[in-house]
């Protein structure tokens, strides 16, 4: 990725801002990041200059500026954040609470999200696709298979449609 500012050098710093699911990423090379400084970077991202935001911002950039905080240790399993950095593994589910701030940028970088939107604990998994839709989809696939002369596939798809329809019949 090329630096968004000088458009010449390879970007080594990626800053992603997510507001209401809208994602904006700034790619910077080291030189441009140094030249812009925190104030300049915030301006590029249209974020107002505010002391609390700056503090938050710095805490999201491990290694950029060391904060003089005591090293945190997970009270349930004794894992230090350093351990995670070395191995990539956390020690227990409580580590996610203990290292919440440190993990935030890492999780965002991995998934582009911090919000689980799958099934919740205790909920049963129910696929939203109804049998009708499945049959409709399969019928289309059947058409393609016949068109492309893939008769073996076509036979299998036909069996599957029958199986689905039979299930409905048996259940009602």
């Amino acid at each position, binding site marked *: 990725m090329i630096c968004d500012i000088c458009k010449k050098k390879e970007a080594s710093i990626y800053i992603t801002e997510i507001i209401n699911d809208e994602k904006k990423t700034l790619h910077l090379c080291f030189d441009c990041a140094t030249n812009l400084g925190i104030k300049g970077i915030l301006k590029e991202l249209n974020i107002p200059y505010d002391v609390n935001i700056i503090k938050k911002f710095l805490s999201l950039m491990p290694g950029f500026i060391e904060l003089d905080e005591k090293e945190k240790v997970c009270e349930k*399993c004794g*894992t230090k954040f350093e351990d995670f950095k070395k191995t990539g593994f956390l020690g227990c*589910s409580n580590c996610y609470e203990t290292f919440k701030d440190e993990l935030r940028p890492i999780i965002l970088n991995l998934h582009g999200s*911090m919000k689980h939107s*799958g099934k*919740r604990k205790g909920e049963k998994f129910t696929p939203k696709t109804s049998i009708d839709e499945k049959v409709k989809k399969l019928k289309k696939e059947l058409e393609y298979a016949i068109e492309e002369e893939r008769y073996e596939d076509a036979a299998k798809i036909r069996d599957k449609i029958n199986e689905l329809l039979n299930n409905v019949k048996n259940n009602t």
Partner: protein
Amino acid sequence: MLKTILKNLPKWIKIYGIDGDVVISSRIRIARNLSNFKFPFKSSVDEKNKIIDFIKEKIEKSSYFQELNLHSFHMSELSDVERMALLEMHLISPIFIENPYGKFLYLSEDGLISIMINEEDHFRIQYIKEGFSLDDIVSNSFLISDNLEEIFDIAYSTNLGYLTSCPTNLGTGLRASLLIHIPILNLIGKIQDIVDNLTKFSITIRGIFGEGSESISSLFQISNSTSLGKNEETIVDSVKKIGKEIMKLERNEREKYFERNKNKLIQEINRSIGKIKYSHKITYKEASEVLSFLRIGSLLRLIDIPIEIINELMMKIRTNIMKIEFETFEDSLIDNLRLEYLKNVFKNYL
């Protein structure tokens, strides 16, 4: 029991499923952890064994799991060859054989279901089926994890979803993957293009034994690379969508390639047949390449070998599976035995 499973091979490799010309099999993997225990990585062997005992006791009492009729194995009680063969059959992961102590496996006799205990996470549920069948297996896989949730206190947070030992699997804990055979795209050098294009869709493509493994005989695995922020169906749909795109590409290119290079292709297939007929031994890699060409030949009806047989052989010829077939641990003999095996199977066809 393990011997039977290892000798028979998993059911799905022997069946030519829907879209089986490209998609050999579909796999769903779900990661789950117990909330009151340290993750396996942080646990000693003693602690891991305690976790196994705890899990076993509850699973054995559950009528749902009794009905699944799973067989169970302490990994430390299996031989190296047996462990490696299970890996070669995709029934367990590379991490699972690294240090076998404190690791436990539930396996269905047909090789469709496996549950690894104390892999990276306390539970790794895996469900595999032949062909392009993610829709079929996703419900079955979640039925297993939902039933685990009924008998265990599973680690979960409202924001991050199901908590996993490595943040890469957070959220749904779901990985949906397709094992695909794309020899023509490989032949015309299109794989790198696909790899480069996929990252922006949060999909990865890699070798057949997962992360860091190389591709052998044009077999690749495509899967979702993110698991948090999207629901299970969206994740499965994204893998399906890319799978369909790649399938279309391979089919188109296969036809084009066949039109333009028919003679070259026939020559290559004949050379492959020659390698089986006239050699004395054959390495796994060589045999895999031979089978990959024979598979194209079978799809284009240039040779008369059923594709199911080629699929099965692609797995059967793997070194440790061969060792179990021939009941030998002699590495030096395997290349000879492999060729003998191939000659024997193909004698009716070539």
